């Protein structure tokens, strides 16, 4: 089977989350993903994208964030690339999530969610870009 690749670009604004959702719906339908899988991929990429927009850029210029999705056998490979400051989300400590309302801290929750939803996360810095590759197994495909 030929390896097909889907990619799209987002501008550095939180309003682009709607665009992310739309692109993932389209791409998910083409690949044949379940609604649950599309939801989970959307959530993981949303958390990353929001992090990049919130902390990644030190200037007011518009930047481009590139998303590439490659289905490989029983696995989906998601790659997200930005030209922000070096930032490795896998460096974050895993937060203690079982806590009370009073003690609950929200920091690091996004990366915790990504770790839970994805099977593998790999960070690289190449050519002054952050390249994060996420892998998600498609074996548990439910409708």
């Amino acid at each position, binding site marked *: 089977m030929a390896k097909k690749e889907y990619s799209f670009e987002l501008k550095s604004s*939180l*309003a682009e*989350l*709607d665009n992310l*959702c739309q692109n993932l719906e389209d791409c998910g339908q083409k690949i044949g993903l379940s*609604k*649950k899988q599309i*939801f989970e991929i*959307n*959530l993981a990429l*949303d*958390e990353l994208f*929001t992090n990049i*927009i*919130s902390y990644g850029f030190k200037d007011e210029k518009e930047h481009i964030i590139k998303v590439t999705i490659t289905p490989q056998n029983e696995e989906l490979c998601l790659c997200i690339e930005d030209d922000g400051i070096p930032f490795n989300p896998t460096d974050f400590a895993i937060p203690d*999530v*079982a*806590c*009370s*309302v*009073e003690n*609950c801290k*929200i920091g690091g*929750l*996004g990366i*915790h*969610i990504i770790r*839970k*939803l994805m099977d593998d996360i790999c960070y690289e810095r190449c050519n002054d870009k952050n390249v994060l590759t996420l892998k998600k197994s498609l074996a548990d495909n439910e409708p």
Partner: protein
Amino acid sequence: MEIIEEKQSGINIFRLNGRLDSNTSQGFEQKIFQAISDGSKNLVVDFKDLDYISSAGLRVILKATKAIKREDGRIMLCSMQDYVKEVFEIAGFDSFLPIVSTMDDALQSF
């Protein structure tokens, strides 16, 4: 995202419709904190028509829960769709937030 606010026998109800993410959570935060500063003690958030939530949405819910507790008030979360509920579970928030199945359950708890 659309937020419909209504009041039923002293309880402020927020019906969320659409997607609660980092782009829309600020609008919801403003509305819910306005109600708290206006003296509302009993809040219900209806998730029935909410299709999506990210950690930015969870953050607002947590912040509002802390604020309402300080005022000796209460918040109830009801009618979550499965995927949305799962996000609360992944975050571990289901263990300490009052999540109930239906609006009736939420209203009766006050």
